[in-house]
């Protein structure tokens, strides 16, 4: 086939989706029996009718009559069993697949892979992983059972008439190879021509609707619409051209099937005339290719599904490396013991880079935080403020020195560091369950009273009462919660976890101007006597903080994309 080979890593991912043999075999067997019944039903019927036309005593036909009825039944029954057994095996494997991917993600999360940093990559990953569960159902099983039945059918015909079997086998091979080749060529071509156009159209549409008001206010809506439609026209033309290739698969299989039937009849006729085979056997030889090609029709579909599964596996393997990339902290073999109480934090000419990047995102940073101190860290976007926050909670590794209470952070277990240094993320993740569940994981032993008290402290008391208490849902990805409320919930979690040092990463990034200042005041007040490092590019009221540190960009900051 003209496709690139599957990488080792992608093969390992596909391996996670493959059920063990003892679950796979029953499904394959049921599928093979069902397909075999299809062939046998036609063979038996052809034999029955031809033999009957010779008007033998009816007794000679009774076995064929039973056979026809039995195969009609068994075909449907085994098909039903195949689907049940196959789905059961695939679903059992889904648990292995998901937990396998999750186990790989945990040691590298969140910064060892881009997939967890960007929303669309995350949904893509989740989608790809779930699609892989179809791999055994749509690829392994049908391919195995089809090959078994095709082999058996050709062998069976060979026992009646070897030359007809040769014709059938030749037509099968030529038909399937041609069909699969044209299909993969058509798919490759569509990928080449249609893929980019589709992407361009999607981007143009996002721009069109994303800037809809502006386009209107600037008399540019019509021009933008024209641009979108021009791309749509190009896509339509490309799709129409690609359609010619897509239909060839079915046509090739139909031609090969016809050739097999005609060829079998013509080459078996001399044996019939010579008396080597009887009329009923001749009818079987003539008719069986029809059923064989019905079964073989699954192969191009399987190859298509296989191509899609392989592409998905490659993406998953790329997004979830099997081993932690350089720059992701690894727990030390013998972690040092944790310093007690509120510790001093001291960074000395620290530099750090994002995993997979070759240039440092921060360089030569010196920073000390005395217990109870409130420090504002400011700097333009791209100067590495978030990088520093992630270093402090050991999401990414560092060079030089980061000491917590005099102990080098890399000698501590990362989990222990995070019990000392808590982080309120810029976009905290809210789980689509109720408010209680969104808080209690930070402190499983906390009761409702304690949760409500902490919500009161972060300024959500009235809000939670208005929403009906801790059972209030937060919505999918926090859809029912505003940016400021999400920050307050994140702080509530951090307070419950009770780390003596708190890092607040741009808490006002998703909050509009007037509310930002109130939010900052509330957050800092609720932090009590903890050490706080506030990261912000818009600053903070000076009376709330003890010290300001400016983070200078490593180089050419203003060119750094806002998403970095």
């Amino acid at each position, binding site marked *: 086939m003209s496709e690139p080979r599957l990488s080792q890593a992608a093969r390992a991912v596909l391996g996670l989706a493959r059920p063990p043999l003892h679950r796979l075999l029953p499904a394959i067997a049921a599928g093979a029996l069902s397909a075999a019944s299809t062939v046998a039903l036609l063979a038996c*019927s052809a034999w029955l009718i031809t033999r009957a036309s010779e008007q033998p005593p009816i007794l000679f036909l009774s076995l064929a009559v039973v056979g026809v009825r039995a195969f009609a039944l068994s075909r449907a029954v085994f098909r039903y069993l195949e689907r049940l057994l196959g789905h059961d095996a695939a679903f059992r494997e889904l648990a292995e697949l998901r937990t396998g991917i999750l186990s790989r993600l945990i040691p590298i999360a969140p910064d060892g892979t881009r997939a967890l940093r960007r929303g669309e990559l995350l949904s893509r990953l989740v989608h790809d992983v779930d699609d892989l569960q179809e791999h055994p159902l749509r690829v392994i099983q049908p391919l195995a059972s089809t090959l078994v039945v095709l082999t058996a059918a050709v062998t069976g015909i060979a026992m009646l008439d070897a030359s007809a079997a040769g014709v059938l086998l030749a037509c099968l091979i030529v038909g399937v190879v041609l069909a699969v080749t044209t299909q993969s060529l058509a798919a490759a071509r569509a990928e080449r021509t249609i893929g980019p156009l589709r992407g361009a*159209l999607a981007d143009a549409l996002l721009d069109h609707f994303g800037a809809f*008001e502006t386009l209107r206010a600037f008399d540019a809506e019509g021009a933008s619409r024209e641009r979108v439609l021009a791309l749509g026209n190009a896509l339509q033309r490309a799709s*129409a051209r690609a359609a010619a290739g897509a239909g*060839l698969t079915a046509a090739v299989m139909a031609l090969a099937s016809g050739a097999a039937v005609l060829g079998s009849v013509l080459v078996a006729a001399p044996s019939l005339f010579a008396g080597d085979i009887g009329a009923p056997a001749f009818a079987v030889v003539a008719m069986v290719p029809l059923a064989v090609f019905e079964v073989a029709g699954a192969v191009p579909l399987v190859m298509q599904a296989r191509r899609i599964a392989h592409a998905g596996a490659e993406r998953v393997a790329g997004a979830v490396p099997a081993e932690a990339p350089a720059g992701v902290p690894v727990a030390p073999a013998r972690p040092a013991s944790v310093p007690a109480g509120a510790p001093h934090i001291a960074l000395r000419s620290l530099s750090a880079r994002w995993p997979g990047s070759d240039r440092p995102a921060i360089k030569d940073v010196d920073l000390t935080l005395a217990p109870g101190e409130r420090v504002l860290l400011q700097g333009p976007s791209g100067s590495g403020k978030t990088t520093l926050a992630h270093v402090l909670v050991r*999401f990414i590794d560092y060079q030089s020195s980061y000491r917590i209470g005099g102990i080098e952070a890399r000698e501590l277990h990362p989990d222990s560091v995070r019990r000392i240094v808590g982080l309120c993320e810029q976009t905290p993740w809210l789980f689509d369950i109720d408010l209680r569940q969104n808080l209690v994981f930070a402190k499983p032993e906390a009761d409702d009273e304690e949760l409500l008290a902490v919500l009161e402290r972060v300024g959500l008391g009235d809000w939670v009462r208005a929403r009906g208490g801790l059972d209030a849902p937060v919505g999918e990805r926090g859809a029912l919660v505003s940016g400021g409320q999400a920050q307050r919930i994140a702080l509530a979690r951090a307070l419950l976890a009770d780390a003596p040092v708190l890092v607040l990463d741009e808490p006002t990034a998703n909050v509009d101007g007037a509310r930002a200042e109130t939010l900052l005041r509330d957050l800092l007040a609720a932090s009590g006597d903890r050490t706080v490092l506030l990261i912000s590019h818009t600053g903070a009221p000076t009376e709330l903080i003890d010290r300001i540190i400016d983070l200078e960009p490593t180089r050419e900051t203003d060119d750094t994309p*806002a998403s970095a």
Partner: protein
Amino acid sequence: MRPFDPRLLRFARSARLLLASGMLIGIVQTAAIVGFAWALAGLVTGFIEGRHAFELRGLIALFAASVVVRALAAWLWELTGLAGAARVRQELRKQVLAAAASLGPDRLRDRSSTELATVAGAGLDSLDGYFARYLPQLLLTGIATPLLVVAMWSADPLSGVIVALALPLIPVFMVLIGLATSAVQRRQWEALQELARAFLEVVGGLATLILHGRQHRQVTRLRAVTHDYRRRTMRVLRVTFLSGFVLELAGSLSVALVAVTAGLRLVDGTMDFLPALFVLVLAPEVFLPVRNVGAQFHASADGMAAAESAFAIIEEAADHRAQSEPGDTDAARVDSLSAAAPAPPGLHVRGLTVQRGDQRIVDAFDMDAARGQVSAIAGESGAGKSTVLDALLGFAPASGLVLLDGAPLTLDRIAWAGQRPQLVAGPIIDNVTLGARRIDTLLVQRCLALTGLAGLPLERTLGPGGSGLSGGQAQRLAVARALYRLLERDLPLLLLDEPSSALDEAAETALISSLRELAAEGRIVVVVAHRESVLRRADAVVRVGALEHV
């Protein structure tokens, strides 16, 4: 879901062509199937009767021709289906975009921009499965099935009757099973969604879980959830797969019944060999389209759901046009002052009220903004500052009085920059000169300089949504774009919504100086702001939510 939505024909005219050509191909294909079956039966019986290939050359030719026509028809099905789907997609896309334009920003505000982009883009892609696979089979079921039954009946009435009786049983059983499973299937679908969410939540929330040291138990939890899902799902599937079972069983049992009855009559001598073989070849073909319709049903469901969202927008626009028929445009909702009144220069707003549902967002807002001055609109967050601008732009349904130099305010006299930069893919210069009549590079540079972006290369290309700029840069570029429109067209009114919210103090000071310069040339500059530093430097401040003038 209905098997076929007639709105598809109404909104996408090329779908009619597709249906017509599909019917034609269907008839040709059915003829080829009958020819194929007849030729095959003739060949087999001919050879068995001892005739030689040369004598049977007519049948061989018919067979070959039928096979070629059948293959051609199979190719044409996909070709016309996919090409037609592409045409229908483009047609629907065009109508959705036109509908969105006629609905305007306010009526689209319930839909996110990604949602709209999906409806007009990727969502329509799923129509491929509908047009190239489902619809042909649906048409074939309508065309080929009765024709084949007639062909069987004319060769052997009893076999015709057998399949004609078995056929209607299929939909009956499927409906019965469908009724029994629809509730179960809905639960199954919900379980599936829930499970997909469970995985997304663990993976997406991994950083948060790690921060709190809760990552270690997630693997066990996820395994338990997934296994629980499998048990629930398999209970449902046992019933769901029954419909497929009935389809297969009805098809294969009819073939068996045809074969056995034909065989018994052959023994009696009450039937001939040739028609018996003929009906045997045809019998599976009768059931093929019905089986395929069932198999392609879910591909079609995706496609129809996508088309459904497109129809919703198109129909909403049509309803809107029908309602506002006799000359009642949005602009007319804001009354104009009678011509008799004197026309004071400047922008005058009286009793501007915006109501959405039962919520009054802006209540009787008054404002006077003089030429040559920078006026600020202040107010608590959520007080409706941005909505006032939306109303001035005609983006929000408003009542009240809005006059610019004595005439009703229209969009073509306003230069505006909203809270979100709303930049588009393309070079910087294209963004600045969006919708401009002429491209004046010097003016572009001046506008960039006025907003503190002097060094930005004009040809630098931005990604979709203006990606490639920092938040502050994007905001300034949006203001520069408004300034270009203001200066290029020499417009009287500049409206800016929080233009400095992402800027530091120095940049903010520079921007306000620029705005004061522009106002001094006799323009009206209105700035929505919350920062004291901006309000302090405005000539007049109006508060939304409270009627106090500062």
